């Protein structure tokens, strides 16, 4: 029976942004990077749960938070009914015997001044050797320790173990180092392993080997994996359930098969479409989202994907910033920029939440208002529909948006999606 091994509720991890003294006085308020902004999921024992997303979406932050390298700002993390959100030092020590992390860059994860045998031995010395009954006892002698390390080398396929014990990391290949890192983690006999992009730095022709290795380990040691990657193809192969992340939130989550067969969230669809297929006879015209992932300090309002979403609605979270971005993109064409110079330049516009304002000073605001109305009408689309009014306030033109609809995760056809389309 599969109980939830790990349960995460509304996890938020914010990092303070280092601001100079003067900036703080001028900018005002606390500025934070919203790396993880309200994420909830649970992992069942024995499954491979995938966390998929592009860089900056927060997946690595979640990995570090689970292992205690980063402190959760709020929310709750539970491991088998035990709350481990803010563990004290002793509790943390024991959490680490149950949840461990495999790194993307195996070479960087190993101290260059230590042999790989020593690296594993050190872990055993600190935590003790695992016995049959599941307890941990300190090793009785150097020899016993060494034998334990040999067994681990053997388990991860580094044979003969005696040969590898005294090797330094720079004497090994990428795949071998990754096995050492795995062995080091296994020395703790964890139940849950968080694998953060374990094959991203390996060549394609050897990735399969590493993935097979990870699956072997899982079978042998009854492991549960949280598999973090940006590669949807690998995730499809490896994972039972996946969660797609975007800018600190999960946008779609459910059984892998269900999601890949019929992705519901526009971002998931975009990701799947963007993957280059190694088959030149299936070249398709791709419809890609506009722009790039915005920074996590000021995430877009409402649904974070709305500025880039090809099927956004008027209620998805349009705000002042979006109209400014619209103007910027519009005026990439020099002719338009010149013709509409009255409303420009872009730098003169200011965004305040649902409003965008441009102060024209002594000039007559009326023509600018008319121009803006025309621009909006020409643009059309959900952004235009979301504008409540373009009016004059004193010496400024103000574009006001309607408030967005609240965004709530919905269960749709066997998975959970956070999108107003559903």
């Amino acid at each position, binding site marked *: 029976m599969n109980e939830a091994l790990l349960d995460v509720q509304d996890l938020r991890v914010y990092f303070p942004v280092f601001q100079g003294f003067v900036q703080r006085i001028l900018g005002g308020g606390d500025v934070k990077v919203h790396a993880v902004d309200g994420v909830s999921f649970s992992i069942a024992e024995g499954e491979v749960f995938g966390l998929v997303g592009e860089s900056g979406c927060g997946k690595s932050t979640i990995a570090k938070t689970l292992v205690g390298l980063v402190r959760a700002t709020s929310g709750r993390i539970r491991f088998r009914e035990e709350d481990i959100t803010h563990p004290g030092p002793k509790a943390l020590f024991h959490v680490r015997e149950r949840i461990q992390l495999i790194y993307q860059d195996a070479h960087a994860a190993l101290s260059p001044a230590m042999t790989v045998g020593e690296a594993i031995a050190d872990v055993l010395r600190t935590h003790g050797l695992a016995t049959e009954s599941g307890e941990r006892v300190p090793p009785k002698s150097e020899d016993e320790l060494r034998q334990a390390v040999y067994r681990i080398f053997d388990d991860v396929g580094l044979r003969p173990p005696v040969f590898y014990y005294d090797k330094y990391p720079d004497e090994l290949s990428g795949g071998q180092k990754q096995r050492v890192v795995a062995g080091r983690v296994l020395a703790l006999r964890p139940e849950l392993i968080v694998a953060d992009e374990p094959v991203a730095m390996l060549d394609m*022709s050897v990735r*399969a080997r590493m993935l097979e290795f990870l699956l072997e380990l899982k079978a042998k040691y009854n492991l549960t994996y949280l598999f973090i990657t940006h590669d949807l193809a690998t995730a499809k*192969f490896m994972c039972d359930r996946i969660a797609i992340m975007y800018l600190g939130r999960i946008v779609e989550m459910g059984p892998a098969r269900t999601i890949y067969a019929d992705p519901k969230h526009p971002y998931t669809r975009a990701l799947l479409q963007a993957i280059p297929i190694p088959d030149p006879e299936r070249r398709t015209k791709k419809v890609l989202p506009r722009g790039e992932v915005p920074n996590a300090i000021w995430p877009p309002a409402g649904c974070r994907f709305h500025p880039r979403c090809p099927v956004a609605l008027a209620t998805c979270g349009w705000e002042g910033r979006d109209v400014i971005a619209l103007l910027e993109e519009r005026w990439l064409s020099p002719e338009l920029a010149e013709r509409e110079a009255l409303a420009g330049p872009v730098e003169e516009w200011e965004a305040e939440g649902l409003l965008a304002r441009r102060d024209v000073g002594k000039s007559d605001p009326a023509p600018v208002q008319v121009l803006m109305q025309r621009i909006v009408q020409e643009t059309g689309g959900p952004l235009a529909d979301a504008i409540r009014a373009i009016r004059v306030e004193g010496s400024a033109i103000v574009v006001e948006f309607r408030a967005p609809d609240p965004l709530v995760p919905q269960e749709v056809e066997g998975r959970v999606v956070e999108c107003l389309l559903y």
Partner: protein
Amino acid sequence: MESKGLSVTFDTPDGPVHAVTDVDLTIEKGTTVGLVGESGCGKSTLGRAILRLLPENARISGTVRFDGTDLSTRSMIFQDPMTRLNPLMRIRDHFIETIQAHDPGVTTDEAVSRALRVLADVRVPADRMNMYPHELSGGMRQRIMIALCLLFKPALLIADEPTTALDVILEAQILQLLQSIMHGYNMAVLLITHNLGLVAEFADRVAVMYAGRIAEEGATVPLFREPYHPYTQGLLRSVIDLDTTKLYSVPGAPPSLLGDSVGCPFYPRCEKRMAVCETVFPEIRPVGEDRRKVACHLY
């Protein structure tokens, strides 16, 4: 561009490293060629050799010729845009400096307007000119790098792993951008990458490199449909895509490029090897149609 017998050897404290050996590569005007291989196969070195951007301890032999005007410019974009842009200079200064280095007579204003035109081609807003590299997003920096390359209307753009540091959607966007630019500038592109999917989507012809040599070369569609060289076959089999149901890796590891070697470099890992492969190196020769070339004793 046409190279014949191009070889690059590095003199290292451990001995000579033959990064590139005997490469004949032809890139026709306005086409894209994908140079595919894994880490250490020499593809980046080859790219740099064409641009004469190699470090001091490199020895080049062989020829590289550019048809048409002899001094037609070539340009290179690098993998990690953050490290290639000077963090202490504003974007506009990058452009001004580059332009004036090439044409000392150009005034600042002329340089700026040329820069703006090129930035519009890569869809970067003008206000980014006054910013510093670290203030911009990764994709923006990559576009600026491309823009810098386009300043002199190069006939050949060499893109060395232009998308590895980025993410899938951004990758696709940059590639779309390159495609649109290619037609506008009538430019040829040499795409150096380990990502077979990119090559399949983007390139007209493909050259597969292994251990410093070209193992197979040909038009993209036939090569993917029916690869001849065992390494190419292995590589295509090991790619994980959305349809993968079974995992495959090529056994073994690439050989060291240190010192001299005998026979086919893929011999230890080849499932179809024969006795002759161990001692005699297979010269690359034309096989079949579509100007396909393979370096393998099977043919």
